[in-house]
């Protein structure tokens, strides 16, 4: 990334991180307010109150939606903070978890299911967190754009011959690796992801048996 681009990304990240922090403050107030409503409702349980059940249900809906908002705001806050340092140590398990959260809406609009399979061990990598997320997201998005509705895209964290790697595996009715790869090449997603990965000492390796691709990183950034 050029110096001016890195500054712009860092600025964007800083502003977004600050706003997501504020959003969490708002959600905290809504959560405590609905919690207080729940407490007060509990105190009136034995008294005649014709709409008790409906109020109680609505309070629980508010709380569920607050939880959902907190999950999204937390991930967006972490994503924004990934621009804090040009190069940082990341654990691919945490990064993959965050990417799955951030991709959920995109995938849902395409009627895709996303699946995360973390490694049972930490997979650290010194890299550019923002570029790495861009490389993986580009490849995942390229895949779900080629797949029929109701397919599944799995993001798997692993090591390949000792090297940190992220495998994207696709499953769906009538999905064939050759068609998937052709589609990704035609859309330019495969090349774009490969170009970003190359800047991170990474490369894309075909995984026909998984009907997908692996991003393998042979070195760390200094």
């Amino acid at each position, binding site marked *: 990334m050029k110096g001016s681009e890195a500054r712009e990304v860092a600025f964007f990240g800083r502003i977004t991180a600050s706003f997501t*922090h504020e959003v969490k*403050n708002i959600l*905290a107030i809504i959560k405590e307010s609905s919690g*207080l409503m729940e*407490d007060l409702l509990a105190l009136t349980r034995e008294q005649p109150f014709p709409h008790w059940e409906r109020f109680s249900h609505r309070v629980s809906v508010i709380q569920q939606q607050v939880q959902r908002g907190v999950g999204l705001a937390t991930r967006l*806050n*972490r994503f924004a*903070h990934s621009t804090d340092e040009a190069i940082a140590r990341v654990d691919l398990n945490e990064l993959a978890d965050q990417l799955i959260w951030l991709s959920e809406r995109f995938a849902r609009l395409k009627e895709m299911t996303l699946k995360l399979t973390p490694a049972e061990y930490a997979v650290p990598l010194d890299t550019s967190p923002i570029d790495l997320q861009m490389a993986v997201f580009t490849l995942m998005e390229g895949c779900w754009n080629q797949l029929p509705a109701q397919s599944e895209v799995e993001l798997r964290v692993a090591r390949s011959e000792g090297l940190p790697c992220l495998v994207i595996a696709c499953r769906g009715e009538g999905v064939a690796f050759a068609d998937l790869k052709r589609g990704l090449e035609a859309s330019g997603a495969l090349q774009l992801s490969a170009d970003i990965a190359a800047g991170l000492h990474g490369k894309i390796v075909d995984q026909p048996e998984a009907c997908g691709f692996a991003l393998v990183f042979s070195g760390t950034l200094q």
Partner: protein
Amino acid sequence: MHEWKVLLVDDEEEFVTTLAERLRLRGIPVRTSTDGEEALRMIETDPPQVVVLDVLMPGLGGLEVLKRIKADFRKVKVILLTGQGSTWDGIQGMRMGVFDYLMKPLNINELIEKIREAMNAYGED
């Protein structure tokens, strides 16, 4: 067991007053402050056993308030509230001697449990 004295410090007034009301409903006496300087004055006048302290506040921030509490009121237990997506503030606070830290938004039962643990630790000092 000591009489519970808990101080909640957060610049978000709606948050701190609502949380205080919920704690009082559960029988926990709580005082509140929305300002770091004011909180320190309150601690000096009538020291609580436990301070629940937000990290990010305008003026005197939570970590600075924590530093002064640790310097002048060593027995007071501090539970730090962090709203960040990462746990960096919490880890920083642990290095500075906080009793524990919690992420906002809170789970009220988890907060009460932490306050209880801090009260017990206060009694043991």
